[in-house]
């Protein structure tokens, strides 16, 4: 005997196993012989009881049961067989008498698959058995594919339904469909009760849709929100096609229902990700631009003004650099939270068209969004005057007043706000954003932490800046950059002991002051090629002076930390000096104290390598920043330059001489030279000298001059000792161990 077939596509068994049950021994024998003859494998049982015993151990492919038997008759046996697990669907053929109608009916009632009138025509019986086996196989396949479909539908949270029109019609749902709605497989659900699961607000629209579809017998495809009996909210997709009867009359609908809640949520999530900034949760650039475009359309149509506020945090980079990006992110989140509170912020995801929910629907566009980095935008879809936008800008600035606690410490942030108003300041979103940007930059350049409304006058300035940037790009190739030199003077010996090179830009016959183009060069990165040029030029100049008057000192070139971070700086300097055949030591590098300390870790390797090849490092603007004294003792530096601010106050405020004294003492104990900058008066010179600083720089001696003038100055002023400062400081006034005096070790010789 074979176990129940496991594969729906199995062929029929070659020798089907038959259990034949008959109390008539002759018939049992004869039928057995006849069916064996026809390729069946037979098991015979002479009673219903015996048959049930046999089935305990074996599963035949088909059972042939005599209807009338003493004891357990065919009907009772059939019922007992159907009750056995695994025999629910095995084909049972009931053998009845020719005119025994009652038995035929009873046979079906007892669960028999079919009946056969007892006869001696064995071929007919064999044929019927084959037919039943095939039908059973087909049924099995159907059952399996139905189960697969049910499983697939179940996985897809899908089920099918039929809806018939008319009195006897109604809704018939598969058990999978019932499950979609949270019902058991045997529950009945009417269309009415189903519609009651749709929230009232949406129900009316859905019913209208159903009516419309039914009236025109059109395909129905829609999503409907429902609330399950347990209160869960789901979204059900309904897809149905009309069915027609043989007369072409609309008979009803057949279709599927599917729970698409998860897909919807995923779609919503995707839409959210595409439109909102992941960090702050605010609308992102895309969403902001979209909203601004809609606001613009509405403003144009309804002829009102709308405002764009561009909000940029001040010094955010410093916070990011010092406290780390994590803290920077935390700060942005908090700023975003505060900014939201400044407007009637709407979080609704908006795409496609703005639903026309009344004339004032554009109000829903109002929002604060993050454009990127530390830039935010507030969109005010309707303002009646500048003052409206200004009020919001004020609110924004106020919102920043409270310190923000990030990275374990309180941070004080401020913002610069630029405002542009449609239509006056632009008629496209791009123009408005650009002009808000111009206004914001004007705030930045005037000290930050304020708001400004765009004006064409500001744009002029912006254009100037752009032009300047373009021109600066070309300045190097056009040879418009020049170096001016300011001598460093050993006042006691009345000698020049070196010079500082200062960059100037000769543009269209005018000299552009460094303050106008150095920050721009820093911002744009042009400072790198410009500094490289300065190094080359300084080396060339030293060589020229050596030829002209045996110059034997160094020229100091100012470099930003950005240059020190470049791994090829040493090599570049090497190339510059060897190209003109001068030693490395003729180049000295100045870095500001602030610059050095900010990028200390990145700069230290360069400092060491430079020091090794003989290039000395001088710290500029010393005293204005926050030097780590611990680092100062280990850094390979040679010189400190006292900031001009202390020199200016010398002899006026006692504090400044205290600072200068301290710097000099520090330099002395660290074995560093000290140079005072910005010396303009004899009095300053004398005080500095008295305090122990012997090397100075300033207008008292010479302003920065073109290289040829420096030579003239030396020849006409220093050498003839004609200047008023010469002779004021005598050697014996200096402390005997002043390292400042060491700066004068190299003598000026004239050819």
């Amino acid at each position, binding site marked *: 005997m074979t176990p129940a077939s496991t594969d729906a596509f199995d062929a029929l068994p070659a020798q089907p196993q038959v259990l034949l049950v008959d109390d008539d021994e002759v018939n049992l024998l004869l039928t057995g012989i006849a069916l064996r003859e026809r390729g069946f494998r037979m098991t015979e049982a002479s009673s219903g009881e015996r048959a049930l015993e046999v089935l305990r151990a074996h599963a035949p492919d088909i059972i042939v049961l005599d209807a009338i038997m003493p004891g357990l008759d065919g009907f009772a046996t059939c019922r007992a067989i159907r009750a056995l697990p695994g025999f629910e669907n095995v084909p049972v053929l009931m053998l009845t*008498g020719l005119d025994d109608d009652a038995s035929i009916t009873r046979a079906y009632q007892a669960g028999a698959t079919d009946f056969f009138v007892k006869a001696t025509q064995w071929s007919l019986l064999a044929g019927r058995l084959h037919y039943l086996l095939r039908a059973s196989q087909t049924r099995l396949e159907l059952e399996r594919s139905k189960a697969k479909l049910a499983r697939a539908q179940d996985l897809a949270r899908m089920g099918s339904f039929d809806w018939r029109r008319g009195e006897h019609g109604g809704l018939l749902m598969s058990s999978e469909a019932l499950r979609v709605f949270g019902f058991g497989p045997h529950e009945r659900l009417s269309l009415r009760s189903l519609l009651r699961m749709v929230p009232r607000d949406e129900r009316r629209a859905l019913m209208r849709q159903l009516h419309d579809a039914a009236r025109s017998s059109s395909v129905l495809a829609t999503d409907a929100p429902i609330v399950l009996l347990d209160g869960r909210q789901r979204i059900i997709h309904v897809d149905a096609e009309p069915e027609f009867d043989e007369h072409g009359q609309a008979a009803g609908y057949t279709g599927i229902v599917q729970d698409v809640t998860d897909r919807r949520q995923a779609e919503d999530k995707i839409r959210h990700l595409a439109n909102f900034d992941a960090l702050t949760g605010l609308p992102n650039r895309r969403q902001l631009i979209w909203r601004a475009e809609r606001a613009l359309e509405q403003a144009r149509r309804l002829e009102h003004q709308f405002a764009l506020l561009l909000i940029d945090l001040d010094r955010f980079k410093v916070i990011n650099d010092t406290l780390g990006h994590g803290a920077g992110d935390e700060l942005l989140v908090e700023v975003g939270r505060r900014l939201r509170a400044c407007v009637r912020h709407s979080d609704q995801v908006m795409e496609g068209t703005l639903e026309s929910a009344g004339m004032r629907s554009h109000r829903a566009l109002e929002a604060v969004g993050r454009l990127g980095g530390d830039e935010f935008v507030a969109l005010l879809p309707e303002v009646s005057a500048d003052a409206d936008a200004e009020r919001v800008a004020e609110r924004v600035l106020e919102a920043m007043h409270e310190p923000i606690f990030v990275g374990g410490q309180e941070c004080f942030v401020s913002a610069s706000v630029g405002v542009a108003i449609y239509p006056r300041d632009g008629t496209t979103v791009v123009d408005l954003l650009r002009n808000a940007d111009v206004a914001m930059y004007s705030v930045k350049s005037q000290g930050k932490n304020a708001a400004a409304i765009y004006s064409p006058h500001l744009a002029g300035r912006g254009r100037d800046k752009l032009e300047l940037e373009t021109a600066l790009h070309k300045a190097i190739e056009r040879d418009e950059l020049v170096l001016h030199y300011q001598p460093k003077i050993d006042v006691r010996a009345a000698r020049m002991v070196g010079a500082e090179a200062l960059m100037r830009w000769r543009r269209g016959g005018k000299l552009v002051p460094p303050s106008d183009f150095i920050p721009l060069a820093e911002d744009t990165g042009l400072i790198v090629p410009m500094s490289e040029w300065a190094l080359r030029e300084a080396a060339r100049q030293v060589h020229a002076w050596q030829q002209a008057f045996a110059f034997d000192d160094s020229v100091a070139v100012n470099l930003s930390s950005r240059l020190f971070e470049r791994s090829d700086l040493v090599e570049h300097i090497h190339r510059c000096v060897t190209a003109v055949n001068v030693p490395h030591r003729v180049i000295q590098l100045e870095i500001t104290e602030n610059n050095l300390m900010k990028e200390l870790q990145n700069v230290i390797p360069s400092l060491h390598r430079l020091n090794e090849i003989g290039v000395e490092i001088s710290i500029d603007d010393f005293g204005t920043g926050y030097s780590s004294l611990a680092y100062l003792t280990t850094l390979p530096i040679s010189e400190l330059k006292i900031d001009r601010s202390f020199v200016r106050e010398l002899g006026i405020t006692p504090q400044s001489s205290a600072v200068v004294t301290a710097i000099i003492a520090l330099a002395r104990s660290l074995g560093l030279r000290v140079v005072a900058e910005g010396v303009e008066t004899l009095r300053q010179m004398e005080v500095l000298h008295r305090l122990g600083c012997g090397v100075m720089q300033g207008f008292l001696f010479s302003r920065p001059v073109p290289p040829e003038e420096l030579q003239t100055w030396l020849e006409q002023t220093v050498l003839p000792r004609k200047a008023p400062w010469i002779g004021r400081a005598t050697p014996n006034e200096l402390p005997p161990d002043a390292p400042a005096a060491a700066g004068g070790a190299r003598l000026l010789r004239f050819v």
Partner: protein
Amino acid sequence: MSATYCAPAPLDAAALARLRALDPEGRNGVLVRVLAAFETSLARTLGQLAALPDPADAAVVAGVAHTLKSSSASVGALHLASTCEELERRLRGTQAAVQRHEIERLIAVGEAALTTVRAMLRA
């Protein structure tokens, strides 16, 4: 010996031909096996009929007639088959008791068939 007598008649040729057709070369002794089985079963049944009380239960007699009907038809004892069929039809669904003479008639027809079959088995 029952009161009613019935003369033995030969088995139906067509039925026998069908039986022979199941074992055309007679290698499996199908005919003999079937006849032997019929003989055993018929003898036992006739004994049961003879032992029935008077009057007998219609359902019991109808059941016996039903069984005898198909087996006798199979071996070609057509008289017995038709007798059983008639009796079964008359008794099916009735509660009435069965008269002794009806049983005796059935026994007599059965004895005749038994005689024929025994003769064939001996031959």
